[in-house]
C-alpha cells in the first residue's frame, strides 16, 4: 500500500484498533485531518480545547484499559495538551498524543506555532519521539503504543513535522505487527524467591493489612486480589486510585486510607504488623509522615516499576512484576504451603478493627436545613444503584465521592489523583460515555473545578453524550477554604468565587438540561429525574452547605493515628 505520512497515521490507528481520536485541528496537522476526513473507521471527537482532548482520552483509557489517543496541532495545540499529559503521567494512564510540528526545515527558527513539544513534554511523558523521516513513522507509532500500554503505563508523545505528512510523498506502508526494543523490557514476572518470602511473612502476620492501589486496576487484577483477600480473610484498604479494585461493600473492606481516609483504615495501617502493598506507590497523601508510617510493620510491596519500590518508604520484601502475575503466583504458593493464617490472632485484630469502625468516622449532620454534600453522593449512589461510572474534578467533592460512593467494580472511579487537575471531570466523563454508550456516567464536580473545562459542554452536545453533572456548589474552592480555615485562621484568601454563572441557564444555552436544587428534601427526586433523562446531559447544580469540611483528616506530614474526626471530635 502506497500512503502519504498523513494517511499512514490514520491507517496505522485503524490497524492498531483505535476507535476514537480526541483532537483539534490546526495548521501543522491539516494533512492528517485531510486523511481523517477520507475514511470512517477512526472516529474523531472534536473538543473545544486541547486540554479537554487529553482528559477525554484519559477518561476513555481509564474506563476501558485501552490507550487513549489524542491529535493536536503544533505550538499552542501542544502546550494546551500538556496539563492532560501530565495528569495521565502521574496516574500511569496509557495514552498516545500525536502533536503536529512545523516542517523539519523550519524547526529551531521560531516559526509560526512552533514550540519544542518534545522538550516541553519530556518531564511528563513516559517517552516521546520526534519523527524526522516518514519511513520511520509507522514503527515510531508502534513503539509509542507499545511503550504507553506495557510495563507501568503512561503517555507517549509523537511529534510529527508537517512535511512528514506531505500528501505528495507516498511510501509503501505495512502495519508493523511486532516491536522489540533492546532498551525497554519491563519485568512482568515476580521473582519466585521473593514470592515465597512474601507468602511466609503474610501467613505469619498477626495484624495484617492489605493496601492496594491503582496498579491493581491497571493490571486488571481485581479478581485475583479479591480472591486472595477473601481466602486470607485480611482487612483491605484501597487508595484513591485503587477504589473499585476490591468491592467496597465487602465486609473485609475498611474504606479508603490516607489524608481523608477512614479512621479504621488509617488506624489499621498504623498498628499492623505486616503490610501488603499491592500496586500502590506510597504517595505522600497516603503515608503522611514517612518516619511515622506503619511503625510496627514489615512491608511487602508488589510494583511493576522498580523505581516505585523503596522510593519514599523502605520495604522488606520487594517484588517487581505485574500485579496479576504476582498475585496468581502467591495464591499458588499459599495453597502449596498448606498453611492458614493464625485464626485467634486474626480474630483479635478484627475485634480491634470493628471497635475503630464503631466510631462511624464518616458521619455527618443528617438533619441540616442545608444540603450536605455527603448526602448528595449517598443519594447518587442509591439512585444509580452503585453501578455508574463516576468521574470527578479535584477538591472536597472528589473526597466525598471517594468516601461515599461505594465502588464495587474497577474502572468505574475516574479522577485525577496524582496531579490533582481541576477541570478533569467533565471531559473525562465524555471519554467514558463514548467508550460505554449505554452506561450511566456521572461527573461529580464543584462550581470552581467545572469552570476550568466548561467549554466541553459544547462537545457533549455535538456528540449527544448524556453525562450527568453533579455540581456541589458551595461558592468556595472548598478544599482551599478548608485549609485556610484550619491552617490560616480562616483568612479566606481568594477562595471565594464571586460572579458565578447561572449554571442552569449556562447548561441550557449549550442545549442541555439544567436543574438547581437547594433543599435537602429535593435531592433524591432531582437525581431520579435527571438520571431518567437517558439521552440528555443534565447539569444538576446542588446549592450545598458552604462550610462543610472533609473529615476525617490527617494534616500534611502527620501520622496515621493523628486524625481529626470532625470539628467537635478532635482525635482519637
Amino acid at each position: 500500500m502506497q500512503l502519504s505520512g498523513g494517511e499512514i497515521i490514520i491507517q496505522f490507528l485503524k490497524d492498531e484498533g483505535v476507535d476514537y481520536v480526541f483532537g483539534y485541528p490546526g495548521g501543522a496537522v491539516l494533512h492528517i485531518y485531510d486523511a481523517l476526513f477520507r475514511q470512517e473507521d477512526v472516529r474523531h471527537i472534536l473538543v473545544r480545547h486541547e486540554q479537554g482532548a487529553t482528559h477525554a482520552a484519559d477518561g476513555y483509557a481509564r474506563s476501558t484499559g485501552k490507550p487513549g489517543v489524542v491529535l493536536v496541532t503544533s505550538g499552542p495545540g501542544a502546550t494546551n495538551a500538556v496539563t492532560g499529559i501530565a495528569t495521565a503521567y502521574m496516574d500511569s494512564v496509557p495514552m498516545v498524543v500525536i502533536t503536529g510540528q512545523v516542517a523539519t526545515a523550519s524547526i529551531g527558527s521560531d516559526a509560526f506555532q512552533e514550540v519544542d513539544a518534545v522538550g516541553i513534554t519530556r518531564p511528563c511523558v513516559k517517552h516521546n519521539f520526534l519523527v524526522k523521516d516518514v519511513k520511520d513513522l509507522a514503527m515510531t507509532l508502534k513503539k509509542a503504543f507499545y511503550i504507553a500500554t506495557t510495563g507501568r503505563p503512561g503517555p507517549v508523545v509523537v511529534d510529527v513535522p508537517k512535511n512528514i505528512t506531505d500528501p505528495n510523498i507516498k511510501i509503501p506502508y505495512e502495519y508493523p505487527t511486532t516491536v522489540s526494543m533492546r532498551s525497554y523490557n519491563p519485568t512482568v514476572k515476580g521473582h519466585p524467591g521473593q514470592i515465597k518470602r512474601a507468602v511466609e511473612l503474610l501467613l505469619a502476620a498477626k495484624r495484617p493489612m492489605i493496601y492496594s492501589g491503582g496498579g491493581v486496576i491497571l493490571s486488571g487484577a481485581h479478581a485475583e486480589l479479591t480472591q486472595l483477600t477473601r481466602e486470607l480473610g485480611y482487612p483491605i484498604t484501597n487508595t484513591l486510585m485503587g477504589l473499585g479494585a476490591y468491592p467496597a461493600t465487602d465486609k473485609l473492606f475498611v474504606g479508603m486510607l490516607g489524608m481523608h481516609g477512614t479512621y479504621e483504615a488509617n488506624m489499621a495501617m498504623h498498628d499492623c504488623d505486616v503490610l501488603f502493598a499491592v500496586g500502590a506507590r506510597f504517595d505522600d497523601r497516603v503515608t503522611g509522615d514517612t518516619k511515622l508510617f506503619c511503625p510496627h510493620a514489615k512491608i511487602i510491596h508488589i510494583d511493576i516499576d522498580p523505581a516505585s519500590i523503596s522510593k519514599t518508604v523502605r520495604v522488606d520484601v520487594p517484588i517487581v512484576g505485574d500485579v496479576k502475575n504476582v498475585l496468581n503466583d502467591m495464591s499458588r504458593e499459599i495453597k502449596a504451603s498448606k498453611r492458614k493464617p493464625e485464626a485467634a490472632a486474626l480474630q483479635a485484630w478484627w475485634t480491634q478493627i470493628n471497635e475503630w469502625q464503631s466510631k462511624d468516622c464518616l458521619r455527618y449532620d443528617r438533619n441540616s436545613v442545608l444540603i450536605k454534600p455527603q448526602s448528595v453522593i449517598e443519594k447518587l449512589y442509591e439512585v444509580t444503584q452503585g453501578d455508574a461510572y463516576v468521574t470527578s474534578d479535584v477538591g472536597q467533592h472528589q473526597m466525598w465521592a471517594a468516601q461515599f460512593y461505594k465502588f464495587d467494580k474497577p474502572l468505574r472511579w475516574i479522577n485525577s489523583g496524582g496531579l490533582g487537575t481541576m477541570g478533569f471531570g467533565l471531559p473525562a466523563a465524555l471519554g467514558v460515555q463514548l467508550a460505554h454508550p449505554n452506561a450511566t456516567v456521572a461527573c461529580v464536580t464543584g462550581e470552581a473545578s467545572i469552570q476550568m473545562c466548561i467549554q466541553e459542554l459544547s462537545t457533549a452536545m455535538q456528540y449527544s453524550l448524556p453525562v450527568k453533572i453533579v455540581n456541589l456548589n458551595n461558592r468556595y474552592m472548598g478544599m482551599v477554604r478548608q485549609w485556610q480555615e484550619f491552617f490560616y485562621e480562616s483568612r479566606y484568601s481568594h477562595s471565594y468565587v464571586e460572579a458565578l454563572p447561572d449554571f442552569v441557564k449556562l447548561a441550557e444555552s449549550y442545549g442541555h438540561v439544567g436543574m438547581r436544587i437547594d433543599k435537602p428534601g429535593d435531592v433524591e427526586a432531582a437525581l431520579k429525574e435527571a438520571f431518567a433523562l437517558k439521552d440528555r446531559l443534565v447539569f444538576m447544580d446542588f446549592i450545598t452547605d458552604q462550610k462543610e469540611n472533609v473529615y476525617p483528616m490527617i494534616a500534611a506530614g502527620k501520622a496515621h493515628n493523628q486524625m481529626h474526626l470532625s470539628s467537635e471530635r478532635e482525635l482519637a
Partner: protein
Amino acid sequence: MRHIISLLMENEAGALSRVAGLFSARGYNIESLTVAPTEDASLSRMTIVTRGSDVVIEQITKQLNKLVDIVKLADITEGKHIERELMLIKVRAADKEPRAELKRLTDIFRGRIIDVSESTYIIELTGSGDKLDAFIAAIDPAAIIETVRSGSTGIARGEKSLQIN
C-alpha cells in the same frame, strides 16, 4: 558518597537531555557528566559522577534505568575500577625559572607539555580528579590562565564489563 554511574544509551537526539533533565527534575546532583559514541555507532556511553546517600543513589540508578533510551547501566564504584580525567591547563611561563619549575612539576605528575609559546605552556594531564586537583594546588595560582577538565570517565577492572549481550 561519591558514585560513578556508567551507562550505555541509544545514540539518539535528545537522549542526553533526558538524563540531564532527570537529574534536575528530581534534584539529584551531577558532579560531572561525559558522553561520546562507542565503537557501536548506535550506542553512546555516558559517565556520570554524582553524590548522594545510598537511598538517593538507588533511586538515581532506578530512575535512569526507567528512561526508555537507556540500554544498560552500572555503578562502577560498587567494584574495583579505574577512573581517569583529562585536564588541559594553560599557564604563564614567561621567565626561565618558572618555565623550568613547571617542566619539573609536569614530569613529576607524568604530564606533558603540548604547546609552548614565548610566554605560555599548555600542559596535558590525566589521572583521577584528586591528582588533577593536586597538580593545580602545586603550581602558583597566579600562573594559571585557563583550565579545561573533561570530567571523569571510568571502567571496571578485570573481566567485568558494561556491554549489551
